[in-house]
């Protein structure tokens, strides 16, 4: 790659690795239940130990998402959430964390395409965002995004899956900046009993294909699972298990408490993953 850009996310992952642990990457959608409260939820998550924030853009046709995130997205859209609202959350996280927590936007491609790919990259960078995760954009189709992300020094996080061939892993590892998002199983987002056996193999294969950082997502919901994944991955990505805490009828303050508690458990799992306690 001709343009060498340091990645804020990768730098953070390296710092954490030096400290003997992986990262907890926490996902929440913007605008659920409304923009102001989604900011509260994200900062709660940061205070409870999330190292990297992933802010989801609600979309009408989220084909990579299971029922939990679908329901939150549907509610956010019904409440009028807009793509530009992610910039508000990005700014809030940057301010709240003093810039120490990188924030990635996770968006299906069409909202960004409609906003204007270059314009979105510009505005995301200006808001202090670290980059974007693109669940339905593969490097093969990403020329416009690559150009914009490179111009604005943003991370380009693509996904790999257990079905990815070695050739696809090389292509994707080479095109990614920040980290490569390894889907732990074949499927959509949602909590699962266990994280697939194939996840560890996929991380190894993705590293062998040239990736410097690989984080694992899909299906992680408990501290034990984050400890298991945190042992071998650079980061543990959690979405549905966090979103689920907000999808109840409890008073908002109680939901935030629940979110903080689950985040804390997941963070503790990641923290002990590479210690003797975690390995046992």
């Amino acid at each position, binding site marked *: 790659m001709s343009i060498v850009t340091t990645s804020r996310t990768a730098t953070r992952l390296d710092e954490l690795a030096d400290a003997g642990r992986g990262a907890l990457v926490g996902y929440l959608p913007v605008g659920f239940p409304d923009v102001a409260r989604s900011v509260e939820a994200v900062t709660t998550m940061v205070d409870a130990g999330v190292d990297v924030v992933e802010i989801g853009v609600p979309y*009408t046709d989220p*084909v*990579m998402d299971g029922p939990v995130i679908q329901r939150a997205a549907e509610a956010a859209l019904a409440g009028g959430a807009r793509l530009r609202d992610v910039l508000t959350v990005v700014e809030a996280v940057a301010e709240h964390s003093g810039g120490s927590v990188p924030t990635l936007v996770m968006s299906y*491609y069409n909202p960004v395409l409609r906003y204007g790919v270059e314009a979105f990259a510009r505005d995301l960078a200006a808001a202090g965002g670290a980059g974007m995760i693109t669940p*339905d954009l593969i490097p093969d189709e990403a020329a416009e995004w690559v150009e914009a992300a490179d111009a604005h020094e943003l991370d380009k996080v*693509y996904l790999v899956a257990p079905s*990815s061939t070695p050739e*696809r892993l090389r292509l994707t590892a080479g095109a990614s900046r920040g980290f490569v998002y390894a889907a732990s199983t074949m*499927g*959509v987002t949602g909590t699962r009993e266990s994280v697939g056996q194939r996840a560890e193999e996929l991380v190894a294969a993705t590293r062998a294909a040239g990736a410097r950082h690989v984080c694992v997502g899909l299906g992680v919901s408990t501290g034990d699972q984050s400890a298991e994944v945190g042992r071998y991955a650079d980061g543990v990505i959690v979405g549905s298990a966090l979103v689920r805490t907000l999808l109840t009828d409890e008073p908002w303050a109680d939901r935030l408490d629940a979110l903080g508690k689950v985040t804390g458990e997941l963070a503790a799992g990641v923290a002990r993953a590479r210690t003797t306690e975690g390995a046992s």
Partner: protein
Amino acid sequence: MPEQPEQPVRDALTETLAHQVTEKLADVQGPYFGQFGGRYVPEALIAALDELETEFRKAQGDPGFAAELSQLHRDYTGRPSPLTEVPRFAAHVAGPDADGEAPVRVFLKREDLNHTGSHKINNVLGQALLVKRMGKSRVIAETGAGQHGVATATAAALLGLECVVYMGEEDTRRQALNVARMELLGATVVPVTIGTRTLKDAINEALRDWVTNVDHTHYLLGTVTGPHPFPEMVREFHRIIGEEAREQVLERVGRLPDVVAACVGGGSNALGLFNAFLDDDGVALYGFEAGGEGIESGRHAARFSGGAPGVLHGARSYLLQDDDGQTRPSHSISAGLDYPSVGPAHSWLHDIGRATYEPVTDAEAMEAFQLLCRTEGIIPAIESAHALAGALRVGRRLAEAGRSDQVLLVNLSGRGDKDVATAARWFGLLEDDAAEGDQ
């Protein structure tokens, strides 16, 4: 028809961008049709799409595959489908009370007479044979009107495959009869209760299932949309419609038609018919999309009149979307046309000026529906009725412009059995509770 600006008579292709495409338009391969198409899907599906493309290309070069498919076409589907001239219907081009010579000749390509009642079976049989070759045991499909679901359930029964069909809850009500047909054929029908509960949401669910079960499951996509290789592959499995029709018209009339018309949901019946005429400059091509309650009402599925290029379900194409890139719900009386995007090849044919796309409202379609019933004894699918209404409109324009001896070829993509309850309600033929009971 306030949303219908007066259109000049469109001369068959003169100087358009289509002339700048050097290869034969009929043979353009994916993933891109101009700036449209592509593979905007999760990486998890790429291996399956690659495998499918490889198997498809192998089959294309294999006379054994072609022989197997054409035997099914003949012995199972009942191809070639007939070409029927409909003079009593055509007479209405001159107005409702006209008598005497019709100013145009109208021929229907009778895909409604195929086994299972529509063109959908052509694509389904082709893909089902590929599924056997790939060694997969399970097929999933989306369906709107239920015709593609019925065709898929049929092929699955024929070839011994497990079959799951996703269908928006709203459509399971609109097309209850087809739900029963699929179940009779041994398929499981899963009503989709999220989003707009129509075809687009059924596709979302099918994609989620596919991502999860891709190692033994094939997604038997029902139209010329989706990620590559579907738009090209489905076109190839439907090109038989146009190839037969072209020969039949030549034999019957001694020359090519002046106008070729079809309804456009995802666009498979239209592309299958158009394809044989794409490189015939003298043939004007018309696609009719669902105008619903009218463009100005916002309740329609007219992607070319009311949409803009965007990405949905794996392809870049014209799309009904809001300012934020969220998919706008579509609307049509016909479930099969009720989809917010359209096959990328149609977007390309639109942009290069090779085909013309116009909306037809629910009311216009139902008028043509009834007209065909009463003048020719043929009950069309409501989808196909959009093409009939569009053909009447184009015929009138030609007649007003003083063109004589014009020949119009219209794809009758399906039969209307599934739509009897909807039509009965529309025309007030049922007591309200009887109509409800039919739901």
